[in-house]
């Protein structure tokens, strides 16, 4: 039941002068990939709606989705999905109070970066 200690402490450094670290970069990438996947969801739902509507509408949507631009979006989505997937598992591991020391956290960071690329390539080869 300690009272708040009113001590003049140095303020934490502003983000723009803070050295980027693997842990901070992998954390912000989790948020970026997760939110960017909304675009993928939009495309997938549109493609399904087109398939449900008519063969003509499907042809239009499918042409967009399977164009070079569609391929680019879905390949990036695939990587984003695997990255967010592995980062999410790491988040659950952190939530359990494990792996929070710096060497382990950095190893896990490299694990999700390398793992996401490997899983993306594997998925492209297999599927």
């Amino acid at each position: 039941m300690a009272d708040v200690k009113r001590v003049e402490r140095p303020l934490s450094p502003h983000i723009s002068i803070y050295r980027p670290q693997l842990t901070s970069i992998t954390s912000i990438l989790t948020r970026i990939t997760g939110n960017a996947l909304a675009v993928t969801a939009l495309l997938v739902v549109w493609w399904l709606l087109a398939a449900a509507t008519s063969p003509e509408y499907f042809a239009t949507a499918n042409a967009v989705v399977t164009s070079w631009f569609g391929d680019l979006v879905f390949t990036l989505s695939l990587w984003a999905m695997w990255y967010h997937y592995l980062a999410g598992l790491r988040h659950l591991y952190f939530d359990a109070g494990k792996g929070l020391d710096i060497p382990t956290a950095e190893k896990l960071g490299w694990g999700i970066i390398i793992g996401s690329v490997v899983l993306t390539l594997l998925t492209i080869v297999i599927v």
Partner: protein
Amino acid sequence: MRYLTARKRAEGKGPSHTGTEHHWHMQVSAVGLAFLVPLFIFIFGSALGGTYEEVIATFSRPIPAILTALVIFVGLQHFSKGAQMMIEDYAHGTTRKALIMFVIGLSYALTAVGLFALAKIAL
């Protein structure tokens, strides 16, 4: 001196002023998606690039249809709550409220359209 525990003093001080229920929802949906997503990637990836007849045939089968419906519903609920977390970190006041409403609305709209499309294909 007020007789408060450290926890009591910290409660409600985060950007959203609440949180454990939200965090629990994120954990539950994350674990659910961890099982669903690899299967979905396989099914969707196999269907993508097929002809109209092949795509209709795939999503008419029970497992691809149910799995896709689950990924759409759970995935968009996870997105809705995750995006809300981001908005609470960066936006304030009316902008924050408007953005959260937009994200929740977008998630429900996409879910409704996705489930309607699947139902129409599968049934």
